């Protein structure tokens, strides 16, 4: 046994591998935040496991001095599910990209959320395939020219949050690679949530899709374009929070708070009985709306990995764990 510091610091979570992302890649900022936030969760480092698929984003585990597996393309959630069922006490993180989670891995992504396996998924969305040098992904806007769409992409993108809602997710949030404090807060919420948590992280790929999220990060326009969701609070944004969101039937509209009156603004509710509000928010974004960030939804829901263990324990309470007896069930006869 090596003796380890009582309280961990960011350094304890940095592995000895040198980080091999492009200089200026948003992944670097995300790594820094995760390394900064994990020690604050007070979970022993050896009980944390990082599982990723394949992609630039999926190299993440190599840089974290925790347990981890760099698996294969799109399958990280399945490995995480198996691990969690074997070792429910571990804190299991999945790190994935927009291609890894939504192209080849779409099915596992969706089923992990549906089952509400107790894992935390970080989806680095740079709206491109980075590692394979720049093809469009399921989140790439139509018309974008890439190596595989020289005349512009003809594919209609999905929205990770919409997919998560369709998959009945119990915790859904969004943050941005460069929103340091915000990301830290969201990560903490995700870690604390019981069940599957999805955090979409808008991440900039400076090489193949630079500026995909400029409207959220550009210092000048940022406040105009970002809607910070806060549970129980009316939805306001703008430099001085002078703008707000009001509901007209099922259609959200941007209003001047002064004119509309704060009391008439839409109030955020992470725990709404139905995901309809979260869904409505997931549709908001440029050009007509600000882009919501923060926790869209966080509800309590039966957790697969817990239910499984409850059934095991329940069965053990009902019946002796007697394998010899199991062998003998049904017709038997004795030869002497």
């Amino acid at each position, binding site marked *: *046994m*090596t003796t*380890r510091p009582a309280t961990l610091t960011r350094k304890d979570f940095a*592995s000895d*591998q040198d980080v091999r992302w492009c200089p200026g890649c948003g992944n670097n900022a995300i790594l820094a935040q995760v390394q900064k936030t994990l020690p604050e969760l007070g979970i*022993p*480092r*050896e*009980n944390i*496991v*990082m*599982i990723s698929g*394949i992609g630039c984003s999926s190299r993440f*585990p*190599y840089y974290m*001095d*925790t*347990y*981890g*597996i*760099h*698996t*294969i393309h799109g*399958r*990280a*959630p*399945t*490995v*995480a*599910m*198996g*691990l*969690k*069922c*074997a*070792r429910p006490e*571990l804190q299991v993180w999945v790190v994935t990209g927009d291609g890894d989670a939504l192209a080849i891995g779409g*099915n*596992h992504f969706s089923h992990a959320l549906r089952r509400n396996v107790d894992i935390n998924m970080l989806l680095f969305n740079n709206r491109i395939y980075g590692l394979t040098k720049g093809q469009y992904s399921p989140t790439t806007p139509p018309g974008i020219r890439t190596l595989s769409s020289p005349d512009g992409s003809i594919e209609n993108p999905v929205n990770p949050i919409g997919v998560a809602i369709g998959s009945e997710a119990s915790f859904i949030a969004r943050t941005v690679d460069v929103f340091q404090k915000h990301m830290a807060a969201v990560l903490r919420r995700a870690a604390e949530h019981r069940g599957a948590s999805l955090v979409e992280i808008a991440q900039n790929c400076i090489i193949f899709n630079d500026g995909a999220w400029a409207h959220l990060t550009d210092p000048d326009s940022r406040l105009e374009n970002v809607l910070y969701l806060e549970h129980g609070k009316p939805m306001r944004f703008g430099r001085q929070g002078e703008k707000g969101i009001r509901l007209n039937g099922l259609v959200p509209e941007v209003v001047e708070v002064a004119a509309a009156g704060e009391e008439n603004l839409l109030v955020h509710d992470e725990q709404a009985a139905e995901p309809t509000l979260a869904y409505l928010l997931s549709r908001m974004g440029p050009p007509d709306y600000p882009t919501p960030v923060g926790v869209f939804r966080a509800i309590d829901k039966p957790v697969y990995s817990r239910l*499984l*263990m409850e059934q*095991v324990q*329940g*069965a*053990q309470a009902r*019946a*002796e*764990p007697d*394998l*010899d007896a*199991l*062998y*003998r069930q*049904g*017709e*038997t*006869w*004795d*030869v*002497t």
Partner: protein
Amino acid sequence: MIRCDSRHISQQWFYTTGPVPVTGRARVIESLQQATILFCGDSGDGMQLTGNQLTATSAVYGNDVSTLPDYPSEIRAPAGSLAGVSAFQLHFASHEIHTPGDHPDVLVAMNPASLKVYLPRLQPGGVLIVDRDAFATRGLARAGYDSNPLDDPAIASRYRLHAVPLLTLTQQALEGLDLKRSAKARCKNFFALGLVYWLYDRPLQQSLDWIGQKFARSPDVAEANRLALQAGFHYGETSEAFDVQWQVAPAPASPGTWRTINGNEAVALGLLTAARLADKPLVYSSYPITPASEVLHHLARWKHLDARTIQAEDEIAAMGATIGAAYGGAFAATGTSGPGLCLKSEAINLAIMLELPLVILNVQRGGPSTGLPTKTEQGDLLQAMYGRNGESPLPVLAPAGPADCFYVAIEAFRIAVRHMTPVLVLGEGLLANSSEPWRIPALRELEPIDVRHPDDPVGFQPYSREAGTLARPWVVPGTPGMEHRLGGLEKQPGTGAVSYAPEDHAQMCALRRDKVARVADFIPDLEVTGPAEAPLLVLSWGGTRGAALTAIECLQQQGRDVAHAHLRYLNPFPRNLGDVLKRYGTVMIPELNHGQLAMLIRATYLVEVVSFSRVGGRPFSIAEIGARAGELLA
């Protein structure tokens, strides 16, 4: 030890006799050494249940038994249609047997469709019992008969035909009871069973008790079935039509408690037992697929023994979950069949790179593609060996019979943990569904599986090697100070750090190859039944063992100079295999494919091999293997 009696003599490959003569003499009691009975009828006629009853009774009575159900592949095809026919074949004997038998001596056909499908199987001179009542125009038409086969003199002369009005007799027997006609009609399978019980002079008690338990909630139905069973037995006794009764004495069996078991239940029990032998939970993750689904169904009922089952969204997810569970330190297994093995292949390769211990069960069925989902085959051997990108070796085992599935499952985990490698078990539809008696072991009789999870961080390297086994350490998350990352990229030996260096890749590939080769240091030599040198060796693997062994033992008893050996370990081969092969003039390999093991043997040992291969979705018969071997000896 097996004996070649009338049943075998009647196989034309012995060139000796023709069919058993159709005698007409007064009723006698003949004693036989074995018998094969086939019940067939519509899916609704309860043939599986009937067959299982005769099996249980015969087993409890002390015979050796071997059974083979034959389900329709459609869920529920139209009543009376050929596609809807369901059958159950049972072979029981007064000596050790290894197969469900070739051609039945007695065929019970509950309707025209089933007669049409199975009559060709009945051996000449065999007893044919049909429900005459079912041979009305509608039934005949559904089966595609344009005339009533029961009126066909050819049939009457070729077999001992008994066209019994089973339905009518059953209704009569149940006259007294106040039950719907349809409910009474449903008892006719028990009438038929009773008749067969009489034919083979079997006690009714076991079935009477079973009926009592089974229908405990509806006593009148229980009563009806009991009466039907007894009426059938009585009918045999009284009816003039039956002039002979047979007795098949109990077979010598090693002392202990016995039960019958099929391969799917045996493998499920084996996996669970392996975990228990290591004090581990079993995590079994699978996506349903015929004929492997049953393994999931069994384990799902055994949660009280810490069997944790996951029904994944597909086979890829099932494999991924198995990897995750193994990384976590559980005994992790997954099960599937051919098409599912295709889907798992990429993730199996990840397991090979991660060097994690886990078991992959592939219950082979007819291929390629969806193929013949409910039929048996041995077509996935080369896929098991090579169906992954790059050099990706793993150990491959194949059970030799239904009960052996239990022991192979345990052995697979033993190897997986000892060498830190995924192990692939090649089951077969035949073994999965057929049953044989199993001497129930006591858990304490079984050798524990010792598992080490190092927890000393000093000098820890995730890819260091244990000398003898070449295993790397199985360090599990939660162990302080030993945090490490695994991955599918190539590694530096020792540290496991990602490396593209040519020498590292070469060395890691060699290590993975040698590690699997090392398994041979821990497995038994190949054993030969028969002469140590001879003109002919018949080498079988998997489910062909029964037919091959029986056929060769018969030939041996006829004084032919031939030997048999069976491969349970397909990768690596037993160390002595090469030497064994050299000692025989010809090596014949019977397999249900186009010669896959033959190909491996030729490539590995450069020996000429006679590949006796067959793909028909059906197991080999003793007769055809015997015949082919006979030719080679001639």
